[in-house]
């Protein structure tokens, strides 16, 4: 074929070359650097039993909303109303649990409160999506409007029903409700069981030679300290927050949809060039509306986990979360212009952000506000990197 030479001008690369060109490679490298740096600066404390649990909790929390934000950004839109949606959902569930179902329908169960709240948040997502696709306005403006609208609505509802902008001291529903346990409880207890079992075995096998000083013995134990040799002495950790399971489910579904289904192709096509997608029969508007609803769903899961974990809620919940979700998506290699990005990158981004946000607890001498300085820097670097990727793919100059 005469055109063969032309098509094969693209160099065939080996495994390494392909890996280095993957969109999530940048976020992967940043993540590894952060993990190593944090482990060293915190002297391993960040990844001991309790440290890991706390880190995973915040990683999962951020990852849940970042996945929703990422899918929407791949489809070329974005959502500033995630944070207020979290506050609204948290308010709705907490108030129903405290004051009962609306219209005097009686006591609320955790599941019922969640279901009614989800209906409302999905309706908001649907409304936002419809306004955007029908008016053709930028999603920035429309969701900014909903940022104010939902923040205000949350406070108004709190004051009207509760006379106070926070609900605290709810009973621990995890003990009575299976659903509350699934949202705010713990999962993967076997992981820590195994961890401590190994720790006990290793501890038992420690060889203290007769000529070892007392300090040398303590040193040896401390070196293995992250294994928490004596579970009862150090801390008692029984499992990860249930959020981890939700993060795995949501990210897993998002990955599957993007890579293996027709809907995934529609999402990419919508974000890349919606006119050509439409010309080829992709239901662009429905895809967008659906993704705004998915983003609202992720915010609701975030809020539900939070409420049943802490047995409280207040009007300031979810502050800045929309910006963090977008930042994670961008650091994870999602293009602001849409049409490109992977869920794996978002997971790496969430791990990076979660670790840095939590770093202050493990490194006492660090000022917590360095978190934002770091985020700003990494975000800018990520945008430049993503722009290069886009140009390389589109052959732009």
């Amino acid at each position, binding site marked *: 074929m*005469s*055109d063969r030479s*032309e098509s094969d001008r693209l160099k065939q690369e080996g495994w390494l070359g392909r890996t280095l060109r993957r969109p999530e490679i940048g976020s992967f490298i940043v993540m590894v650097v952060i993990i190593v740096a944090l482990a060293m600066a915190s002297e391993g404390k960040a990844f001991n039993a309790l440290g890991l649990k706390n880190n995973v909790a915040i990683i999962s929390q951020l990852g849940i909303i970042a996945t929703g934000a990422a899918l929407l950004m791949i489809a070329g839109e974005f959502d500033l109303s995630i944070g207020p949606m979290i506050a609204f959902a948290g308010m709705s569930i907490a108030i129903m649990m405290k004051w009962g179902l609306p219209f005097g329908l009686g006591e609320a169960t955790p599941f019922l409160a969640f279901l009614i709240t989800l209906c409302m948040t999905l309706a908001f997502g649907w409304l936002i999506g419809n306004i955007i696709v029908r008016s053709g306005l930028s999603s920035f403006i429309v969701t900014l409007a909903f940022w104010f609208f939902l923040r205000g609505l949350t406070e108004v509802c709190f004051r009207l029903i509760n006379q106070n902008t926070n609900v605290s001291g709810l009973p621990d529903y995890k003990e009575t409700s299976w659903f509350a346990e699934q949202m705010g409880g713990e999962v993967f207890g076997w992981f820590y069981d195994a961890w401590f079992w190994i720790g006990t075995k290793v501890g038992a096998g420690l060889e203290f030679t007769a000529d070892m000083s007392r300090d040398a013995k303590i040193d040896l134990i401390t070196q293995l300290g992250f294994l928490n040799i004596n579970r009862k002495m150090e801390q008692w950790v029984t499992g990860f927050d249930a959020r981890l399971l939700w993060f795995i489910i949501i990210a897993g579904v998002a990955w599957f949809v993007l890579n293996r289904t027709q809907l995934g192709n529609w999402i990419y096509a919508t974000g890349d060039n919606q006119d050509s997608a439409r010309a080829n*029969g992709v239901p662009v508007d429905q895809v967008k509306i659906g993704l705004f609803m998915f983003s609202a769903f992720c915010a609701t899961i975030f809020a539900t986990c939070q409420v049943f974990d802490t047995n409280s809620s207040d009007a300031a919940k979810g502050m800045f979360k929309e910006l963090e979700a977008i930042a994670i998506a961008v650091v994870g290699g999602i293009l602001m212009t849409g049409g490109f990005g992977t869920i794996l990158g978002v997971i790496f981004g969430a791990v990076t952000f979660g670790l840095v946000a939590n770093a202050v607890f493990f490194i006492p001498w660090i000022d917590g506000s360095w978190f934002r300085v770091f985020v700003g820097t990494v975000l800018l670097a990520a945008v430049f990197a993503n722009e290069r990727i886009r140009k390389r793919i*589109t052959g732009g100059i």
Partner: protein
Amino acid sequence: MAEPYLSVRGLVKRFGPFTALAGVDLDVYPGEVHALLGDNGAGKSTLIKTLAGVHQPTEGQILIEGKPTEFRSPRDASAAGIGTVYQDLALNQLLSVTRNFFMGRELISPLGTMRTKEMNEIAHNEMLKIGIDFSDPTQAVGTMSGGQRQTLAIARAIYFGAKVLILDEPTSALGQKQQMGVLKTIKRVRQRGDIAIIFITHNEIHSRLVGDRFTFLALGKVIGAGASEEISDTEMRRLMSGGAEMGDLKQELASI
């Protein structure tokens, strides 16, 4: 002569007070390249958009195999076998060749997943049939040359059952060699014998090279039509400049 697959009779399209098409007749036969020529603003774009179902005609008829047909949307037109390859090609640069090929019409298994492997094979084979051996259908369209993108868009239209292929200036904005590649592709499609091609162009040489039949538009009207051998080069040049005589143009230019 076989029956025309697509006929247009007295097509009028007005946008408010503006008449874009003022009664156009057109017959397109399978296995033929019908070159549609005309200056900017002649109504070529409106005509093809009407055939593609984007616009609805104000008056007149579109006949498919002799039967009057109405297109309410691009979907109707493509169901009737009209495949349009626009200038911008309706391709997504960041997506892979396969994802573009099947955009909106993915092959799915009973479980709702995409049959990725099969889709890759089909995309590769369909493009091979009309002249491009594209080794890796998972690479992004952004990495392809303009000519290859044309081929992809054409292969896609044919695979999804186009009986009339409308090519909107497929050779513009391409280098010489790639233009030849696209013309070869057009010839290969023509050879199949079952597909009618409407080839819109500004380029006299290209239309001469592949065109079997010509229609010239100017200001929304057909100012000349005929088979390739019926139209002389001088006549063609006159019609392409909207009906003005070359001599007149020379005089006009000289007077400035």
